[in-house]
């Protein structure tokens, strides 16, 4: 079988030339040469493509396409990339190249990473990643990569764990003999006795994001509102899904002093939407923000509201929406944002968007009633809302008092932007 080996400057023999552009070497180098020798007759590495880790990080998609084009010019049966061991940059480069090869050309590609490589979670779902164990394991990991890649190229099924691959991190149902209640009692008794037991659902690691720099002068800042509560103009013109949304709606509030009942509807399956439908300011507090704008307490309210429906929205989709919203807010000159959340999984989606905004340097206050969820996912600035169903309102209060309460809450939330 014909194979191409992709590796970085270090294993390609270029020392620490991290910025080097892609280069082609004849045949296999380094660990791939060793693998070729061991698997004699099974594989021929026709070329090695070497590229600096930083070059790929700096040129992103362009560099990936450049590398992939070079690889494809050799018409390989399969590709191995890495190992990336513990480097997140190398992991991202290898993961991205394997994914692109698979998606663009249908060519099997395998990489290897250590368990703690930050890129693992990004690529395990859609690519084959060998479990490596640090620098001393490079040769052996390269062997395992090659073996798995050969099997894939032959169209065989790969038993992930048995062959040293990370699971795809996906789940499926299997039929069992002991129902869940029996297993949970067994697990509880084992825990009581101090015996070993294995949880069936592992606790997730959501990761953290550095706190974006605070706003120095709120009176000059442009503030945007984002929500996962599914508020959309009547007719839902952007067609956002009421659950597991893949997109968001953008609507203008220019020239409006408040959000009027009847102009909006709520596409959201996770909470009782009647209270927000009756008064949309309970979710998007335009009335309060406008007053604060007129009083000079904030610079201006950004003219567009970003709204999605966060109930059972996957993290991947939430992250992607967050990245796009962050880019659009950045282009619009937004300095800071308020993100208002509703129910549980929706707050998870909201917090994930908050993190992307903060990552892009837009300080964002997460206004939510389920502050525990926001904390656990990793929102940096959290302001506790009144309830899932009326985050910035209070059913039962006279409208004017409710508005005064909302204004005070929004001011409280804005104050967090200065911290």
């Amino acid at each position, binding site marked *: 079988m014909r194979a191409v080996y992709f590796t970085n400057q270090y294993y390609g023999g270029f020392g620490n030339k991290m910025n080097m552009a892609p280069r082609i070497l004849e045949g296999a180098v380094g660990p791939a040469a060793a693998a070729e020798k061991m698997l004699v007759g099974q594989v021929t590495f026709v070329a090695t493509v070497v590229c600096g880790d930083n070059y790929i990080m700096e040129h992103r998609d362009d560099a990936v396409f450049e590398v992939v084009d070079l690889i494809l010019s050799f018409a390989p049966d399969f590709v191995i990339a890495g190992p990336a061991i513990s480097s997140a940059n190398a992991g991202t480069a290898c993961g991205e190249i394997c994914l692109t090869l698979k998606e663009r050309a249908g060519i099997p590609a395998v990489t290897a990473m250590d368990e703690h490589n930050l890129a693992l*979670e990004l690529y395990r*779902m859609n690519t084959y990643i060998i479990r490596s164990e640090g620098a001393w394991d490079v040769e052996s990991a390269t062997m395992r990569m090659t073996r798995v890649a050969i099997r894939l190229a032959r169209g065989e099924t790969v038993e992930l764990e048995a062959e040293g691959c990370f*699971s*795809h*991190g*996906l*789940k*499926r*149902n*299997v*039929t*069992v003999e002991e*129902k*869940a*209640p*029996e*297993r*949970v*009692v067994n*697990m*509880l*008794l084992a*825990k*009581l006795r101090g015996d070993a*037991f294995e*949880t*069936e*659902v*592992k*606790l*997730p*690691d959501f990761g953290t994001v550095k706190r974006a720099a605070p706003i120095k002068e709120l009176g000059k800042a442009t503030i945007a509102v984002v929500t996962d509560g599914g508020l959309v103009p009547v007719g839902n013109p952007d067609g956002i899904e*009421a659950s*597991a949304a893949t997109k968001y709606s953008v609507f203008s509030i220019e020239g409006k002093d408040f959000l009027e009942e009847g102009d909006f509807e709520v596409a959201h*399956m*996770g*909470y*009782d939407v009647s209270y927000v439908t009756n008064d949309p300011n309970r979710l998007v507090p335009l009335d309060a923000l406008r007053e604060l704008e007129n009083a000079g307490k904030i610079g201006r309210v950004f003219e567009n509201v970003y709204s999605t429906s966060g*109930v*059972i929205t*996957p*993290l*991947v989709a939430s992250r992607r929406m967050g990245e796009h919203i962050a880019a659009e807010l950045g282009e619009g000159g937004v300095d800071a944002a308020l993100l208002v959340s509703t*129910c*549980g*999984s*929706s*707050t*998870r989606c909201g917090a994930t968007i908050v993190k992307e905004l903060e990552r892009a340097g837009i300080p964002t206050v997460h206004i939510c*009633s*389920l*502050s*525990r*969820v926001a904390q*656990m*996912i990793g929102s940096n600035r959290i302001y506790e809302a*009144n*309830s*899932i*169903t009326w985050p910035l309102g209070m059913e039962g209060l006279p409208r004017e008092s409710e508005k005064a309460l909302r204004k005070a809450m929004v001011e409280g939330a804005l104050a967090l932007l200065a911290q």
Partner: protein
Amino acid sequence: MTTEFKLCIITKKYKNGAVLLKLRVDTIHVKQVIFGDSTYIKNGVLTIDRKGLCQLLMSPVFESLDLELASPGESCRISGVGDVIRPMVASGGWEASFPGTLGRLCQAGDGRLVELSGVAVVETWELPAMSKTFIDMSGPGVKYSPFSQTYNLVIIAKPVSGVERTSYARELKKASLKAAAILAQTAVNEEPDECELFCLGGVSDVDAEGKKLPRVVYIYQVFSHQTLAEPLFYGDNCRGMLPTPVHPNEILAGALVNNCYEQVHNADTTYVIQTHPVIKELYRRHGKDLYFAGVILKNTPSAQKEKERMAMIAAAQAKNLFHADAAIITKEGGGHPQIDMAMTCQACEKQGVKTALMLTEFLVNDGSREEVLIFSNPEADAIVSAGYCETVEFPPVDRVCGSMFIPDISVPMNEGFSCMCKLVRGSLSQLGDSWLRSKER
């Protein structure tokens, strides 16, 4: 019958014990259900007088009420399913069954119940709802629902126009519970195929070697904060409820009834509550490898502070009222009740009460394993999964009972489609009534 005999002796001996509720459940196996001229059971064949029963179940809020049968193995899809009920009647007839919801208010869980197995009453919900579910009587859906294997009496009650959702729900619930009681009533004089006795008292709290058995309490978290999503406890919804100590027999005997119609798949059916898998498992092991201390019914309010308050009170009850060494915690509803679960777990562990959690993984469809939980507190180190939300391909069927269209499915219900398995009523049971568990791939 020998087991029953032994148990009866034990309970007699401990008549003056501290926990006095004694529930005897006589079950008659039904092998077939047919429509006929009157309603009776003979040799395991249940005959139902369709017209007569329709009249008994009719209500002024219904424009019409019809009954249909769906049998296991049939190419039939029951569509727009609301609740499912196990035929069950208390000694006083239907007027004393499901107290507070159907029958008059009285203590549930003491005395004799007669139940039918192999048959279920299935309601369809004939008003709009955010999501709806279905049951397939054959094909791949069978793997996901216990109700594919029961003879189902389907109640299709069309509402009069302009009816309030809550009024329709109440009348529909009464109709289906009444049907369940009437069907079970046919068997009160039959020789039972199975007899179970449920009594907490009179059971040793040490094992064969004289070692103290761990006291286990079950913290049963029900959904609340959304109209038509909360169960009914003795006829009232659970919204304003504080954590409430209850006897497990009350749950088995119809004190708690499902009332979830907005997002049907978020809560187990009354059928599963009547045969509560966690309570039955704890009973099965009561006096053997654990001591079943009791049940705490706990709701899930929407505000953070309230959640904290409920978790704290429930944990204190587990510790100080039930003197529990350990607790099993389950939930109903969608995402945010996970937080209640996590907080209750934390509060219990803080009190020295060890915990294990059981849930289903449906916060995402076919997603990655990091998507199934919204909490991550380290005390939650023992979690069991009763299934994962995966996409399933469903074939066309010959006959549809109920709605031809439901939300989430873009084709008429007699056609083939693929959808999340949670839309199958009875799948992803949060009370653990399932042979499925998740596995990583």
